[in-house]
């Protein structure tokens, strides 16, 4: 057997700037094994949620993720409404769709910028993030905040969209389209990007189904599944839009799916603004009876899944949260093995991982009480290195 080397990436990812730990085993330049360790970012949100009332829970789950902050409340309020089959007013449905799609645009642009950055193509990075600012401005005009909009409540939305804001919003959305077209060309036609991403990190359709991969990660592998089309909610069945599916499953296709989805999202957002019906925005739910409900929402990274069980009081007795990265992260085993170490960083980034979401699970870290000094940390890290050395060399 050839000599094997361990390449640790993490526990603080140098590029993705989130806490995770990849142990890559390489032979020469080739990756032969990968182990992913998560769990550095526990906050115990599922347990906290059991101590909150149904009105407070959307605020808690909004804090699960900093980028797609609206996805979790979106799925969560649908789970609560599913318990009693509550019908949401039409206007609220359209407003929900506008929030969800605005978020998808800025999240995809954020990923595109980062992907360019990972490949050393910083022009894409700068352009994408400049465009993202415009969308964040739109969000600020509509909801008063660049992120964490606090728009969702069981039965509707918290705030209405004002008619006088709409011209500004449309102007801003239209202003990004020409630059986005340019960016699309830069991604789809650039020979360097082709060379770095085509045929790299392929996730086959069979593997995507086996791992139950979600969102753009699966749609780039030819899986035609999108919660917005398959189980229409909010206003997604009332506007015209296309599901973007490509066949190759490599990093390039994942980028293409996200770029094209951004255009679809702009399309959906504009249709919703033009067709915004009049009326109430809140169903005014008085109480939630005993039962169980499931809510799903197609977040930028894939389907978010919330399961809530109520015993008839004002707090749930179980709240299960499943973020898309939880299903997409294990696909690394299928995509990275056999590739070169130089491609590892972009393959690991291609699913658009969001570790904050994945690790929402456990209860308080009991070690939190114990404070480590600098010297002790160095000692611990040396011990760990020795342990790894003894195990693998």
């Amino acid at each position, binding site marked *: 057997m050839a000599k094997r080397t361990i390449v640790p990436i993490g526990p603080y990812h140098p590029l993705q700037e989130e806490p995770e730990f990849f142990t890559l085993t390489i032979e020469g330049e080739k990756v032969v094994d990968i182990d992913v360790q*998560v*769990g550095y970012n*526990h906050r*115990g949100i*599922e*347990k906290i949620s059991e101590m909150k009332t149904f009105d407070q829970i959307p605020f808690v789950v909004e804090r699960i993720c900093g980028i797609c902050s609206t996805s979790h409340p979106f799925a969560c309020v649908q789970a609560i409404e*599913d318990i009693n*089959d509550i019908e949401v007013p039409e206007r609220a449905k359209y407003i929900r769709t506008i929030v969800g799609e605005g978020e998808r645009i800025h999240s995809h642009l954020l990923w595109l910028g980062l992907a360019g950055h990972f490949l050393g193509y910083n022009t894409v990075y700068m352009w994408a993030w400049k465009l993202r600012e415009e969308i964040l401005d739109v969000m600020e005009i509509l909801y008063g905040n660049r992120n964490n909009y606090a728009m969702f409540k069981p039965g509707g939305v918290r705030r209405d969209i004002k008619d006088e804001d709409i011209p500004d919003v449309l102007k801003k959305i239209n202003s990004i389209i020409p630059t986005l077209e340019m960016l699309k060309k830069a991604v789809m036609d650039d020979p360097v990007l082709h060379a770095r991403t085509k045929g790299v990190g392929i996730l086959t359709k069979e*593997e995507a*189904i*086996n*791992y*139950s991969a979600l969102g753009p990660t699966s749609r780039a592998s030819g899986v035609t*599944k999108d919660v917005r089309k*398959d*189980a229409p909610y909010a206003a997604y069945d009332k506007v015209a839009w296309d599901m973007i599916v490509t066949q190759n499953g490599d990093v390039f296709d994942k980028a293409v799916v996200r770029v094209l989805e951004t255009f679809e999202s702009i399309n959906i957002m504009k249709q919703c603004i033009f067709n915004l019906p009049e009326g109430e925005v809140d169903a005014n739910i008085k109480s939630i009876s005993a039962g*169980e409900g*499931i809510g*799903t929402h197609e977040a930028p990274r894939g*389907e978010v*899944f919330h*399961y809530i*069980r109520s015993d008839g009081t004002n707090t749930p*007795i*179980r709240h*299960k949260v*499943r973020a898309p990265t*939880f*299903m997409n*992260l*294990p696909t690394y*085993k299928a995509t990275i093995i056999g590739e070169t170490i130089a491609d590892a960083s972009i393959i690991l980034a291609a699913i658009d991982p969001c570790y904050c979401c994945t*690790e929402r*699970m*456990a*209860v*308080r*870290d*009991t*070690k939190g*009480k*114990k404070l480590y000094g600098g010297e002790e940390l160095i000692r611990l890290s040396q011990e760990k290195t020795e342990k790894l050395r003894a195990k693998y060399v």
Partner: protein
Amino acid sequence: MRREEVLKNIKGKFKGDIIELFDKSSKRVYIEIKPQSLVKVATYIFKDLKARFNIASGMDARLHIEILYHFTIEPINLLISLRVKLPKDKLEIDSLAPVFEAANWIEREMHELLGINFKGHPNLKKLLLPDEWPEGVYPLRAEYKEWDKNAIRDRGL
């Protein structure tokens, strides 16, 4: 296949395995099955009905531990939740990870948070909790009182 056909097929095929079928709404069905039939039923739903495995959710229901396995069949927009109830003195069930890879991580998660043993799982190591986490302490159990500082102190951590 239409929704009614799918449900009729499941009912006909697994007559002896189904304890209760609760048709909640046009999009949701909850089927309680015997724990020993899980692999059989889940394999049929995943492989033959071409469902997508959403996730499983474990829960401590005081008298027993309950696991729900959620599957979505997209073409008919139906979410099937398989419910199994495990007695607290025998927390064991066959693993689904050998059947489809998607069940791998969630079974590791339920193993460490609820203390359920998944027979036949390829690698039941910790997923989210730190390596130093004590044996036999399960955060999602009803009796878990770890936010109580005294409990942490008494355990000597």
